[in-house]
């Protein structure tokens, strides 16, 4: 730099150049901001806030502390060796009376029931009778429901008094806390989420690989055919986007089901016997076929945009230098398409692990994804905390993949169209 650092550049009338520049661009900056502000507002309300709400719900644990405040404070200083004394029981009865009157024992009972089965009925039954209980409460409660005589029950109440909990995350990966605070696996017959996570990931991997194998030659043709053919081909590639996702998915049901088009044809030409029709839908195969089809454009388009920038002269040069066709492809063309492969791969993989509707329709029991369990916990079991924890894990995985991708390839190298 030639100018000395002590004398900043100024305009002709002595205003520092930076100030002057800032003033000059302020108007256009403001205009740009106003143009994007409706979208920004929409995104904050409909996207950013729900995400933070989800993250919050996955650790939020208000039930015990808000419904049993007296019990919680009565348990302070408890030795955890033997049952707590009468004051704690009295506080519980009082809390349950209040809760019954305010009709908010339902949330508490389901919350504690996630951790210890039998808590739901214990709380609701005790809540109903709490008004009529007489001291000494300790004996009365234990007589009413022996759950109150178990040490673990009180340990649980004390543990869950914390406003935050990790138990949803533990449940999402098939783990639970023992009453003494150790993390252990859930019994084998209750394991479900880890299998689903694993299945979601490997099936998404297979789908990504399939889209790559099918999409690479198409993208190559798109990038290298004369314009009039490639335009037609591009329309065919984009055609699926003009059809409803539901239609495309249900079409696969019509084609692949056991009384479907493909099986009928195979039976008609005698490839398979009528009683041995292939089971191609409502299982993993159905999910992979349908999702490969639906996600194919998301692989083709990034590949195409990268391939279009590779002049045909590279391959010609490689050939003229003595490279056999396959060797020229492997050493020259293929390495140049890696950014496209990575972009398409990450796009399809991320879309795939978060896909819901197609596995729900064609996946049956065995072809279901973790997203279908998020929906299940949202809609059926109403365990929103667990749903939020699973969704947060998915979000975290996506972010990790994205960061790895960014480190290896660089997001700025990718053009999508």
């Amino acid at each position: 730099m030639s100018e000395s650092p002590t004398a900043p550049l100024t305009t002709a009338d002595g205003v520092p150049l930076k100030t002057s520049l800032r003033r000059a661009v302020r108007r256009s900056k403001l205009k740009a901001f106003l143009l994007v502000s409706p979208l920004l507002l929409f995104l904050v309300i409909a996207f950013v806030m729900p995400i933070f709400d989800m993250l919050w719900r996955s650790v939020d644990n208000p039930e015990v502390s808000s419904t049993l405040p007296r019990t919680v404070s009565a348990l302070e200083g408890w030795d955890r060796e033997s049952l707590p004394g009468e004051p704690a029981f009295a506080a519980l009865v009082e809390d349950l009376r209040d809760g019954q009157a305010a009709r908010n024992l339902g949330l508490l009972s389901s919350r504690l029931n996630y951790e210890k089965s039998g808590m739901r009925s214990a709380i609701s039954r005790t809540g109903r009778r709490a008004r009529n209980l007489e001291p000494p409460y300790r004996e009365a409660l234990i007589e009413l429901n022996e759950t109150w005589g178990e040490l673990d029950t009180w340990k649980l109440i004390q543990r869950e008094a914390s406003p935050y909990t990790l138990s949803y995350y533990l449940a999402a990966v098939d783990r639970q806390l023992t009453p003494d605070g150790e993390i252990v696996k859930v019994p084998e017959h209750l394991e479900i989420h880890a299998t689903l996570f694993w299945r979601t990931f490997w099936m998404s991997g297979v789908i990504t690989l399939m889209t790559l194998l099918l999409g690479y030659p198409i993208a190559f043709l798109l990038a290298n055919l004369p314009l009039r053919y490639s335009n037609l081909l591009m329309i065919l590639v984009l055609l699926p986007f003009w059809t409803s996702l539901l239609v495309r998915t249900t079409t696969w049901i019509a084609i692949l089901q056991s009384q479907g088009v493909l099986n009928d044809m195979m039976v008609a030409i005698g490839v398979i016997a009528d009683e041995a029709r292939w089971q191609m839908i409502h299982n993993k195969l159905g999910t992979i076929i349908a999702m490969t089809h639906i996600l194919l454009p998301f692989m083709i388009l990034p590949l195409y945009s990268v391939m279009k920038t590779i002049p045909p002269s590279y391959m010609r040069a490689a050939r003229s230098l003595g490279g056999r066709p396959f060797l020229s492809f492997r050493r020259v063309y293929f390495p140049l398409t890696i950014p496209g492969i990575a972009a398409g791969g990450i796009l399809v993989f991320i879309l795939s692990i978060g896909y819901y509707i197609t596995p729900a329709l064609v996946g049956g029991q065995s072809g279901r994804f973790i997203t279908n369990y998020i929906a299940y916990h949202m809609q059926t079991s109403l365990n929103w905390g667990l749903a939020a924890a699973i969704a947060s894990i998915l979000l975290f995985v996506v972010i990790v993949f994205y960061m790895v991708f960014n480190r290896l390839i660089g997001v700025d190298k990718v053009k999508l169209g």
Partner: protein
Amino acid sequence: MTQTLEAATLTRDAVSDDTCFARFTNVQKSYDGVELVVKDFNLDIRKGEFVTLLGPSGSGKTTCLMMMAGFETPTHGEILLKGNPISGLPPHKRGIGMVFQNYALFPHMTVAENLAFPLEVRHLSKEEVKQKVQRALAMVRLEDFGDRRPAQLSGGQQQRVALARALVFEPELVLMDEPLGALDKNLREEMQYEIKRIHASLGVTMIYVTHDQTEALTMSDRIAVFNDGVVQQLAAPDALYEEPENAFVAYFIGENNRLQGEVVERVGDVCSVRLDSGDVVRAKPVAVGGVGSRTTLSLRPERVSIIRDGSALPDNCFTAKVQEVIYLGDHLRTRLSVCGNDEFIIKTPNAEGHGVLRPGQEIEIGWSSADCRALDA
């Protein structure tokens, strides 16, 4: 017509002379089955020769090069390399070096890796590869650039790397497709000499495609001027400039004044042409029919002289009116109006003793009939 004549003489030469290295015989090419891009192309190239295919874009010259390289197949005719037909041979088996218009350096490889590619596919040992790459880099004076990527080089350096890569596996024939098109003027001239030097020192045969006539004139042993899929003239640079055989070549190579007219008399080496303005010009008949046929007279601007008192009179003398004088440093370019033609250009050296011409001034100009070639209309 002219090119078949030329081809005939060449074929005869080639038969008697076994140094004929590459040959196109009656090559035709059509992409759509409707139009011929290359119509009956014949060319014999001697070993070690530098032949340029020169022509405007779309004239078929690059197509001919691509057929030689193996990226296009001739629709008709045969291409021979060292006496063997190569139409059935895929590009990677032809062993022809090629320099592409935009260099086509592999962007994901370093310069050294680019140069090593043709050697590695030929399974040379690591040591040999390293040696040859270093030698090739030294040849184009880029010894220290082996570890760089092509994108880190300037246009001229990339050009040199492309040249080195096309030569590193020691092909006997090197094709160049407008290799200097992307360079600026100074660099282009520098590279012309560089290519010439390498050609001379290695003795490889080169076929060079360009649309730049200066480039063609400086570098080539022979030039084939293409137009409309046909070779208009195949000759050495000086012959092409001095003795164009038809109006296209005269127009395409260098600057020339064109005068349209009709042959009124033809005696031996001189014919008289009545221009559309009514003036009669004496010219050398090159490609004209008999009396009554239309012709285009071609006259180089530097062959026209201004007649002053006392100087000898050439056999064509006319009065001209100065329209415009453009100062070009070493010479003056003057636009005249003569014989009804307002675009008549003469060049006069900016030397002592030449009076300054002014627009509107009337002067006497003249030229020799030998310098004025009567070509096809």
